[in-house]
């Protein structure tokens, strides 16, 4: 998409604020998705996106567009997500509710769906972050190996080896989940 004209001052120079606004508009979805794939809970995403663009705002003047802008943004997302994952883990301990409160009442269906998504998160959380990122970008976002290599600035061979490791790790996590489920309830296959 072409840069809107209003983005430029009279001498043709791009103003920092305009750059921020333009960057926000162009890259919002990328930042949103990257943070999600990096394990930020969906309820935390607005705050996390907010944080990322605060950093962008501060650093924009010093930014030299050498590589792709997405690589730069992604590095900021990575730091923000790591911070948030740590604080989210603490918060979970503080605010954990008994399961009964979640599964009773009319909201059961809603809770089920939310639980299902958070289950996928739980599985992905068991992957080392570097593997998780490659895995989710490839398996869920449909990015090619080359695109991932460029974004993360790693060799393509590393992309594939991380994917291989991540798949193994994910498979094991699913197996553990099944085992846990079978232990707690009737065997899955025995259900009507």
């Amino acid at each position, binding site marked *: 998409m072409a840069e809107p004209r209003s983005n430029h001052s009279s001498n043709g120079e791009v103003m920092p604020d305009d750059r921020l606004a333009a960057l926000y508009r162009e890259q919002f979805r990328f930042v949103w*998705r990257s943070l999600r794939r990096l394990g930020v809970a969906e309820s935390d995403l607005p705050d996390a996106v907010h944080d990322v663009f605060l950093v962008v705002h501060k650093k924009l003047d010093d930014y030299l567009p050498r590589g792709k802008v997405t690589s730069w943004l992604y590095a900021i997302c990575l730091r923000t997500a790591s911070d948030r994952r740590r604080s989210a883990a603490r918060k979970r301990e503080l605010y954990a509710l*008994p399961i009964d409160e979640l599964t009773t009442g009319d909201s059961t269906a809603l809770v*089920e769906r*939310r*639980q299902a*998504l958070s*289950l996928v998160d739980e599985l992905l959380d068991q992957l080392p972050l570097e593997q998780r990122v490659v895995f989710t970008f490839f398996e869920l976002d449909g990015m090619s190996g080359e695109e991932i290599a460029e974004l993360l600035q790693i060799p393509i061979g590393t992309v594939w080896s991380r994917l291989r490791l991540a798949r193994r790790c994910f*498979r094991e996590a699913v197996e553990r989940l099944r085992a846990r489920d079978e232990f707690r309830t009737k065997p899955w296959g025995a259900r009507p």
Partner: protein
Amino acid sequence: MNAPRRWVETDSGARPLERALLRGALDVEAPEGIEERIWARLVALGPVVAAGGAELAGSAAQTSPALKSAASAASAAHATTPSALASGAAKIGVGMIVKSVAVGAIAGTMVLTGYTGIDAALRRGTETPAIGRVDARSTKSPSGGPSKAGSALSIEQAPAGAEPTSTARFAAVRATTSPPAAAPSDVLPSAVSAFAPLPSDQSQPKSKLGEEAQLLRRAREALRRGDLPAASNALDTATHTFPRGALTEEREALSIELLARSGQREAARLRAQTFLRAFPESPYAANVRTITE
């Protein structure tokens, strides 16, 4: 090594449960309108938080009750929502997951339903008068009369006056992409409530799977609310745009449901039989069977 097949695709080597789980996590697109709300908050609250954190935010809140409510709404949503996700994940059963996948619940609506809380909180935040005032000030006069909220906002590391004007500029940038050319002062409020979906930006890395999932989500939501033409539209678009998409199975299941719901029972039944032959282990198989019985 050649590129492997993606696990969400059929015959990719993934086990059915793995595939079902991954498909459930495909669509993480932001709910409509949230982009504008985060931007509004970024402009209104951002520099205050950046400059000194809670204290400054607090003092801004004292002088401006509405800003306070925005800040607390944001933090309240932040504080309360993770709990549900946290304990839920530990207790859930695989059977329940597959059931959820099978009814087609996860793949789209999840993102939205899980989001309602903070979404509402953010909306409250951005629609408060004070933010409107900050916005009005910034859109009308960049040099700005020193309102109380303005004085709080000006305590920032960034170039003075940078933030207030950026709303207007952003609005201007936006106005070029949205069909009705709104007056600058109208842009933000209307953006918050009824902004048209943005055309996808070519500079962004495309997520084809995400797009396909989103189309199917639209179809599913339309089906849920009984808007059959809209569902048909979304499914047609999905079929044309992604004729060999990774989510053909989902699309087919939804198409069958659409046929059944629009009274074409026989067509639905025939297509369901084909579906069940092609995808006997599909998480949607049970659902497809009930439709045709």
